[in-house]
């Protein structure tokens, strides 16, 4: 489902900049990216989403080319159809939960995920009218996942969605993630440094070093 071969560069190498050659090719639908912090896991997700531009290489998702340096292909972020769930949720503070969920609705195109279904799947029906400021960490992540799904993505990118939560909240959120995995049939790239999470949620693991 994911074929990616890129060189990521940040800053100048001679003054301690960052340069990684990352190669992931996997036909599994749910892939984990593991590795110690600073290995560039988040940078890889950013590259798939188009938030950073690789120095060279090629990114293909589910047979669709998103980036190809040699062919000068660089699909703009807003046309990539990636559902990105950030580590820090990044809900819009000036919108309600409902406003956040509806933000990504696209005009035209197929509606694979319906509003009510996603709300039920994630159990966020009671939160719809709330401001995002007073959601708990777990609630905020569920809303962020819902918001990503409702943008009708073709791939879901999850960047350590559990890392900002305490242990009890983690255990609470994992079943929701498993449901998203099993019921959406979307390709998923899951970034985590926790072996336990990776084992419980994903089928194939790639370790970056």
């Amino acid at each position, binding site marked *: 489902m994911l074929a990616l071969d890129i060189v990521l560069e940040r800053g100048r190498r001679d003054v301690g900049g960052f340069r990684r050659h990352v190669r992931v090719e996997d036909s599994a639908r749910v892939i984990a990216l593991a590795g110690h912090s600073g290995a560039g896991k988040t940078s890889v997700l950013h590259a798939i989403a*188009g938030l950073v531009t690789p120095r060279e290489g090629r990114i293909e998702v589910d047979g669709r080319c998103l980036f190809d340096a040699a062919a000068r292909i660089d699909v703009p972020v*807003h046309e990539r159809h990636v559902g990105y769930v950030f580590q*820090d949720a990044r809900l819009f*503070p000036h919108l309600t939960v409902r406003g956040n969920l509806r933000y*990504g609705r696209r005009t035209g195109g197929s509606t694979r995920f319906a509003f009510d279904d996603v709300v039920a799947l994630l159990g966020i029906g009671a939160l719809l009218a709330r401001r995002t400021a007073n959601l708990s960490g777990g609630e905020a992540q569920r809303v962020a996942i819902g918001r*990503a799904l409702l943008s009708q993505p073709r791939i879901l990118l999850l960047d350590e969605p559990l890392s900002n939560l305490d242990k009890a909240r983690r255990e609470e959120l994992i079943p929701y993630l498993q449901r998203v995995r099993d019921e959406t049939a979307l390709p998923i790239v899951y970034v985590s440094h926790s072996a336990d999470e990776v084992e419980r949620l994903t089928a194939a693991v790639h370790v970056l070093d």
Partner: protein
Amino acid sequence: MPIPVSWHPSALLPHRPRMFDFTPAELTAIALSLKVATVAALASLPLGIATGWLLARKRFFGKALVDALVHLPLVLPPVVVGYVLLVALGNHGVVGGFLMHHFGIGVAFRWTGAALASAVMGFPLMVRTIRLSIESADQRLEQAAATLGATPWRVFRSVTLPLAWPGIVAGAVLAFAKALGEFGATITFVSAIPGETQTISSAIYGLLQVPGGDAGIWRLALVAVGISLLALLASEWLVRRQRGGEAR
């Protein structure tokens, strides 16, 4: 002993100047000042937002020069700004002559010219405030909006603008306050014609030139202080509200 019917406390102080009896000319100047300052702030706001956004978010060739040009009215003698406007936009000026000849549009010696002069003078303050508020609008939220399918223009409208809004309004209020106090550029460009271009500032200056104008000067000065103080408090409150909103 019957009390006189038409008695008034002021009878005790027959020679005390009547502090708050505004003359029609003073009221006209106050109304004109408010009109000029409001139009100056609102009309320059779109350009102020665009410039603030450009300076906050974009890197381009000549950015330092644009930044310097925007700030020029802050450090130039206002009379120079007024003179430049007169040369450029006066009815026989380089641009003004063209506009007058072909479209019959002229701002020289009209209240619109006063608004233009004070807009130019207030522009640096407006842009500085708007730029800061756009800089402090969280770019990570803009990224999130883009991944959700929002075009850059929609990201700007639906995320950047609402997040920066209190700062943008504060910038407009600040420009309003500055426009209210503008004197040098305005009087150079459009003179001080009562009812057309004579604002509070130039009315005070005019009263200084005639004997016995003290009471009028005091009245106008107090009004200027009052309005400016309110505007500054409002602007400060708005900026604080934006900071508070982020802390939540």
